[in-house]
C-alpha cells in the first residue's frame, strides 16, 4: 500500500506525524502520541488506522495492538462526537461524582460506554482526571468542567448541542 494514495491521515496529521517521528532519538517514541492524535482526528483506532500507524512507525500491527490496548484513552470503536467522561474516583465520589454520573445517564438515556442514537454523545465513567480539589469534575473530550452539581448537567449538554449545530450550519 502506498501511504500517499491510501492514507487516512489529513495532510496536517501526516505532517505532524513526520515532524514528531523526526524529533525523537528513536522513531517509535512517536507511537503513543500519534495513536492519540490519529484518534482525535478520525474518531477511533479502526483496523485501517492501526495498519497505517504501524506502517508509518515501522512495527507490525500485532505489536501496535499489544501496546495500544494498554492505554485507557485509546479506543477501538466509535464514540459520540462529544465523549462525556465522569470521574467517580475518591475525591469526586465524596463530593457527589456518582450523582453527576447518574444525572448524565438519565439525561442521555445511556449507560457506561453507551452512545446516543444521534451519535452526538457518549458516556464513560472514568478514573481520576486530576481535578480532585475542584470535584466533582468531568471532561467532555478534553474540556474540563469542575465543581459541578447535578442541576448543571442539562446546561452542559445543551452547550455542546449548540456547538454541534454551530459547526453543522457552518460546514
Amino acid at each position: 500500500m502506498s501511504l500517499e494514495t491510501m492514507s487516512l491521515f489529513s495532510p496536517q496529521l501526516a505532517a505532524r506525524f513526520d515532524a514528531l517521528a523526526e524529533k525523537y532519538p528513536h522513531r517509535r517514541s512517536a507511537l503513543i502520541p500519534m495513536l492519540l492524535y490519529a484518534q482525535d482526528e478520525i474518531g477511533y483506532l479502526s483496523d485501517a488506522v492501526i495498519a497505517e500507524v504501524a506502517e508509518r512507525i515501522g512495527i507490525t500491527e500485532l505489536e501496535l495492538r499489544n501496546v495500544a490496548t494498554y492505554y485507557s484513552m485509546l479506543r477501538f470503536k466509535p464514540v459520540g462526537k462529544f465523549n462525556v467522561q465522569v470521574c467517580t474516583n475518591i475525591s469526586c465520589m465524596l463530593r457527589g461524582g456518582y450523582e453527576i454520573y447518574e444525572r448524565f445517564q438519565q439525561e442521555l438515556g445511556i449507560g457506561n460506554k453507551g452512545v446516543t442514537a444521534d451519535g452526538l454523545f457518549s458516556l464513560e465513567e472514568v478514573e481520576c482526571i486530576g481535578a480532585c480539589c475542584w470535584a466533582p469534575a468531568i471532561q467532555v473530550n478534553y474540556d474540563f468542567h469542575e465543581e459541578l452539581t447535578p442541576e448543571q448537567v442539562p446546561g452542559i449538554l445543551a452547550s455542546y448541542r449548540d456547538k454541534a449545530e454551530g459547526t453543522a450550519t457552518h460546514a
Partner: protein
Amino acid sequence: MPRLVSHPDEVKIVSQRFGLGAAEIDRYIELGGYESAKKCLAQGPDWIINEMKASNLRGRGGAGFPAGMKWSFVPKKSGKPKYILVNGDESEPGTCKDHLIFLHDPHAVIEGAIIAGLAVGAKLGFIYLRGEYRHLLEIMEKAVADAYARGFLGTHIFGSDTEFQIITQTGAGAYEVGEESALMESLEGKRGVPRIKPPFPAVVGLYGGPTVINNAETIATVPHVIEMGAAAYATVGTPRNGGTRLFGISGHVERPGVYELPMGYNLKKMIYEVAGGVRGGRALKAVVPGGSSTPVLLPEEIENLGMDFDQVGKAGSMLGSAGVVVLDDQTCIVEFALRTISFYQHESCGWCIPCREGTDWLKKSLTRFHAGFGEARDIDNIQYLAENMLGRTFCPLGDAAAMPILGFVKKFRREFEDHLNGKPCPFAKHVDLAVV
C-alpha cells in the same frame, strides 16, 4: 478554570507565579524567570548538585527521594546520551498540583529541566504529561516553542556553547506510567510495564542512557531553590525535609484547593484552619494524607502530626503526593475501600501476579461485602490478600493497592463487621461501583 485559593499561612514559592500570567514568556522573565538557569550555566554542575543536596529538596512525586542525591548518581562520563525526564503523568487520586503548575507556570518546568540538564550533562529533556491534560500540553508546547525562539533552548542556550533541547510528550491514559520505569517504557512507545531495578534509571534509563526522572513539582521547584539559595530554602521546612509542598486538600472540607505550605505543617490545622474545616460542621472520620495509596489516619492520629516525609512515615502512613483526602462521619469506609481498590484493579497492568490477582480478588471481596453478602472470615481474608501483595511486585502499584486496604481493615474493622449478615450498609448510596 480550576479555582485558585489562598490562606495567610501559605508560603508561596512554587506557586508564587500562579494567576500572574507567567505562562507568557515575557511575564515569566519580568517576574525573575530564567535567571536561575543563567546562574547555573555560569556556576557549573558540581555547584548545582551541591546546592540541590543542601536544599533538602525531596521528590514530590511521592517517594521523597532527595533530588540532589538522585542527580549525583548519574555518571559523569557515559557512552550513551543522558536524559532528563519530567514526570507529569499526575494520576494518583487526590492529586492535582502539577495541573496548576502546567497551567500557570510552564516556564518553571522548562527552567528546572534546563538546570537538571546542566547538572548532569544531559542535552535532551522530555516533559511527559498525562493524556487527559491536553490543554496543559498545549500550554507547555507553546512555552517550549517560546523558549526556543528566545534561545533559552537549543544548541547554544543563553548564547553559550551548551546544548539543551526539550520534547513534550502526551500519555494516553495509564496510572502505572507514573512509575519511573513504566514512564520510560511508555516514552519508548511500549506498554507501560515496569522494569526490574537495579539498574536504576540514573545508570540505565531511557534508551539505555543515564536518566534523571523527577516529578514536575520537584523540577518546577529547582529554579526557586537556586534563586533563594539552598540554605534559605531548606530552613522553610523541617530537618531533612526542605521547603514547601503543594498540598491538594479535597473531599469533605469547606474550602478544598491546592495550598502551598511549609513541610511539617500540622495536618489538623491544615484541615480545620487552612481548608475551613469539615464541610457542614460535621465530625471528621478519617484522613488519607498523601494520595489514595497512603494508609488512612484517624482523627486522634493527626493531632500533632507535622506533614513531612519522616513524621507521616512515623505515624504509619506516607506523605506521598501530598493529596490530602478528608472523610466526614457520613462516609462508609467499606465503600471508600471498594472505590479505592476498584481503581487499582482497573490500573494493574497484569505483569506481576500478586498485583493482578490481588487487586481483582480484593475488589470481588469488597464488592460482595459492601452488598451485604460478606462473611466474617472475609475480613481476615481481605487482610491476608493485601499483606501478601506487599513487596512482591516489580513496581509499587501492588503496594499502592494493598497499603490503603490494610489501613481500612485494621482501623475500621468494626465498620466491616457492621456490614455482615445481610445488614444493609448504614451509609449506602451506591451499590454498583464497578468501573468497567
